[in-house]
């Protein structure tokens, strides 16, 4: 009873904060906040496979690209599609509402990841990482060359703006809650066992392949939704949108925040985004006491890299170190200290 009231209050506070942000933040900061929210969604999705199930895949850039193009093609104005692309008529005429487009994008991303990555499950250890990285490059390369569908290197522009703070943070809350429930269920525990020891899991009667596929399906569905939100925020997509650099940054976020936790990826996303904002002036060049500091491109990534390396050396499991934020600070979240289950 008490718990339910707290939960309700939490939700009300959450949406009140969003309302405040919506109304009082400057445009620039609001956009940053939205960017953070959708990055967090993607990070949560990726973390399900890479963190909880411990199948280190770098292929999510490819599946996100599939999802991004899907939502773009489903929502772009018919005239635009007619002018720049050579689509079959039904696809050219097709125009679906945003929520449905997002759902379809998530499903296609999921499908793509299963079709592309399932064969790779045969490979062990780092061979799998290599193969998954290849999938990224292959999808990117195809997007560059299947011009009738993707408009090549230029990509698709003029995607309608649908993403807003309510969509992003509403979905983030729902996804967070669902993942939290999933990880507490027997399916979640099965994933954790698989992550610790696949053979043991098999001996215990867990259907390892089924659970890996499940984890991939759910993970890439979530990151697909994230990709769709991204498209309707940035209003364009091109083959380089989710290139290996993006993949690196996401992996860095999750690793810095803490793999195998729900709060870790979100905190990692926040740290990197705040860091990026702080270093942005250095990257663009600025004037200090009358001296002009020249722009230094790449400063942000150098910062990410150094942070990542330091964390990997001194805290290999990330800042969260395998525990959730509310387990670190139970008082702050109004929880009684309890042993983690």
């Amino acid at each position, binding site marked *: 009873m008490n718990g339910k009231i707290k939960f309700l209050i939490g939700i009300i506070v959450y949406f009140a904060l969003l309302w405040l942000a919506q109304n009082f933040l400057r445009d620039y900061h609001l956009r940053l906040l939205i960017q953070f929210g959708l990055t967090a969604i993607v990070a949560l999705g990726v973390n399900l496979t890479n963190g909880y199930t411990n199948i280190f895949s770098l292929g999510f850039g490819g599946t996100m690209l599939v999802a991004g193009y899907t939502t773009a093609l489903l929502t772009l104005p018919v005239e635009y599609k007619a002018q720049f692309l050579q689509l079959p008529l039904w696809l050219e005429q097709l125009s679906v509402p945003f929520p449905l487009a997002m759902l379809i994008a998530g499903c296609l991303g999921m499908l793509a990841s299963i079709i592309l990555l399932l064969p790779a499950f045969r490979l062990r250890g*780092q061979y799998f990482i*290599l193969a998954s990285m*290849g999938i990224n490059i292959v999808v990117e*390369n195809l997007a560059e060359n299947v011009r009738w569908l993707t408009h090549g290197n230029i990509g698709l522009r003029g995607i309608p703006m649908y993403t807003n703070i309510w969509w992003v943070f509403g979905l983030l809350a729902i996804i967070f809650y669902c993942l939290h429930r999933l990880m507490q269920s027997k399916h979640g525990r099965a994933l954790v066992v698989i992550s610790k020891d696949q053979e043991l899991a098999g001996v215990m009667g867990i259907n390892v392949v089924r659970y890996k596929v499940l984890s991939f399906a759910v993970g890439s569905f979530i990151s697909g939704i994230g990709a769709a939100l991204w498209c309707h925020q940035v209003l364009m997509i091109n083959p380089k949108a989710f290139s290996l650099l993006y993949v*690196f940054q996401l992996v860095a976020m999750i690793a810095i925040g803490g793999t195998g936790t729900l709060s870790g990826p979100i905190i990692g996303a926040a740290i990197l985004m705040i860091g990026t904002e702080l270093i942005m002036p250095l990257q663009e060049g600025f004037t200090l006491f009358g001296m002009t500091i020249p722009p230094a491109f790449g400063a942000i990534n150098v910062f990410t890299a150094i942070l990542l390396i330091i964390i*990997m*050396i001194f805290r290999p499991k990330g800042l969260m170190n395998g525990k959730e934020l509310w387990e670190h600070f139970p008082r702050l979240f109004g929880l009684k200290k309890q042993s983690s289950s």
Partner: protein
Amino acid sequence: MDLYLLQQVINALSYGSILALLAIGYTMIYGILGLINFAHGEIFMIGAFCAYLLITFVGSPFILGIAAAVGGAMLIGLFIERFIYRPCLNRNAEVLTVFIASFGASLGFRNLMTMIYGDGRRAFPIPPQLDQILVTESGLFINTKDIWIFGVTLILLIAVSCFIKFSRLGVAMRAVAYNANAARLVGVNSRVIVTLAFAIGSALAGVSAVAYGTSFGILNPSMGYLAGLNGFIAAVLGGIGNVPGAAIAGFIIGLGEVLFVGLLPPSWSAIRPTFVWILLFIILFIKPSGLFRPNIRIE
């Protein structure tokens, strides 16, 4: 052999050499530490920049440029080993953690160079006496630099293979790759072996970098990234830990890519990056351990 085909093979020589030299570094380090040294491509890139800076700005002779590339690459390779991987490994980190750290190292060095030099392309200074085109009687075009690159690579490959096959430390390297613990029990200090692997791998990456610069005439901070990936694919195809295998696979990939572009209609050449990966997938599905025998313990 068909003249056109022969011409393509000649064109593939230097690209194959570059990949072969790169692949050895990956295969050695993976063999010994079980780690994809993701930063190997950046070691290669920094080697290229060392040569470029010395030749272009100091005006030193080309041969000193090669030495600088080798030295610079070795320095960076050993630095990464000593200050990034070893602290991770000393804390008994999982290999995945070290792999993510190598990710970080790759990202860091690539962008550090971008910060310093910008990410535009620069012209690599090629000595004119190296860059001459010979035409044979049958009408084959042969660029002398390709012959040089191939020749030097061949000598190095033979030297490294002999070192691995016959020398005391070379045998120890293979032993550590197979069973590091048993190697300690016969008195092998695995740290020395790891350092040696990084030194040799990075030195070869330095040579490969000069070959790249000479062959393509350009360099930029992200040059190591694609070349490095292809080098790693070669290492996997050659059977991880198998040095001659990696070299042969490097040539196979180089030749495959050139033939892919040369034999298929031009509209296909844009999907050249895909080709290498498709080749990798096909081979891994037929033979999950690569074309040749891996030199690590197969569990």
